[in-house]
């Protein structure tokens, strides 16, 4: 594939991710709106969000001005190298920033200087995997700062919560995290959770949960049950959209489990705001988009 073609397809992926809320999230927002009574502030907040979704798509402008940390997962087939992909992707990120699909959001942590291009050490973040098929698979998400700030990690046992090293302990941590976040992560939120692993990989796995369809079912029966139960319980807390109070505190919880060392038991919880920007596509070697991954049902 010509580099030019790859660059322009990646630019389109970034544009869509920033300006268009995926269909599964729109369905969830609409479902939440039906749950909140007309005339309440909760319903009002959800209505404004819904209006914002249509406006951003029609104007092809970012849903939220915080276009967040740029995270991308790549399934790399044999016909392209990591280097080739990275160079095309970085150039697409730069162009997207110039065009205003991405805000100038990458700051040197020591000097505070903004690179102005979203490029810099660790930015944008790319995770490579080998593809099993012939297509190039690219999935990306934009993770906003406000929601990232309320994400958190617990180490079990936790005496304060009375949380032991078992599923019941995990449940207590997750509900505590929702209580601490209140509306500050721009809820109704969606949680990605990893039980186990180490501190670093735990958060990576927790964030990877956001690539699941919101209305899917967990393959693991026990985790699937836990997801459903926790979603119900979290929504009895009454925190509501933006923390205004209401029925919808969360729109989803996605949980995975990873092995841990006997000495550690971490629960890593990533909070995603309602402006849940993620998208992805499969690209053929000739540069054609095979399929958008989150379109339709």
């Amino acid at each position: 594939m010509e580099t030019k073609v790859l660059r322009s397809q990646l630019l389109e992926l970034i544009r869509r991710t920033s300006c268009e809320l995926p269909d599964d999230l729109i369905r969830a927002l609409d479902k939440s709106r039906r749950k909140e009574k007309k005339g309440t502030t909760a319903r009002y907040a959800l209505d404004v969000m819904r209006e914002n979704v249509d406006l951003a798509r029609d104007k092809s402008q970012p849903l939220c001005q915080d276009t967040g940390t740029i995270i991308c997962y790549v399934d790399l087939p044999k016909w392209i190298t990591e280097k080739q992909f990275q160079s095309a992707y970085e150039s697409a990120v730069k162009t997207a920033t110039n065009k205003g699909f991405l805000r100038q959001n990458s700051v040197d942590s020591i000097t505070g200087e903004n690179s102005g291009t979203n490029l810099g050490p660790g930015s944008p973040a790319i995770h490579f995997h080998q593809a099993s098929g012939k297509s190039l698979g690219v999935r990306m998400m934009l993770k906003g700062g406000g929601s990232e700030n309320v994400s958190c990690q617990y180490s079990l046992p936790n005496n304060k919560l009375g949380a032991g090293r078992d599923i019941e302990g995990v449940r207590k941590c997750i509900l505590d995290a929702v209580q601490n976040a209140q509306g500050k992560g721009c809820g109704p939120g969606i949680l990605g959770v990893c039980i186990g692993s180490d501190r670093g990989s735990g958060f990576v796995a927790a964030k990877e949960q956001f690539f699941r369809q919101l209305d899917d079912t967990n393959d693991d029966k026990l985790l699937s049950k836990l997801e459903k139960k926790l979603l119900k319980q979290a929504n009895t807390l009454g925190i509501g959209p933006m923390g205004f109070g209401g029925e919808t505190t969360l729109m989803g919880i996605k949980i995975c489990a990873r092995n841990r060392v006997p000495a550690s038991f971490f629960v890593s919880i990533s909070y995603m705001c309602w402006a849940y920007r993620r998208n992805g596509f499969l690209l053929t070697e000739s540069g054609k988009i095979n399929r958008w991954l989150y379109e339709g049902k």
Partner: protein
Amino acid sequence: MILEAPFTEEKLRKLKLGDVVEITGLIYTGRDAVHKYLHDGNKPPVDLKDSIIYHCGPVVVKEKGEWVVKAAGPTTSIREEPYQGPLMEQYGIRGVIGKGGMGSKTLAACKKVGACYFHAIGGAAQVLAEKVVKVSDVHLLNEFGSPEAVWEFQVVKFPVVVTMDSHGKSLHAKVENASAKALAQLV
């Protein structure tokens, strides 16, 4: 409910927790840099008496010689907690728009001067940008850069919710207490 300029104490005292309000008139953006600048004793670039400050780092571009707002959602307010209360009292600021709510110092200042904290919908950058019908001026642009500058926004029916009122009440505290009680039932 509609709140139209001038933003007098009388009008603000009437607003109560949970009111959905549409603001029409001139408001000023201001975030971290400006709050610190004023708190350090520098003179405000505009008259802040009966004003509304919006915690927002907007995306503004010049099109055909005019400033046009491309995105204008709220930013997290709590960062201004050390400065907001004293500035409200010193200059008679009548309202603050932001997200996430503020603390007890600001709540006390709201009560004292007769002001409100208005919560805008986080993430609704496009809906809110549409409500800015005109950018009439900008101050401290060279000093602080575009997101931190003081922009004069003429807004029409800018949608917000009163989450801290001038009677000492905070929706944030109320919701947090209620959810803590509900949580105690679950764990």
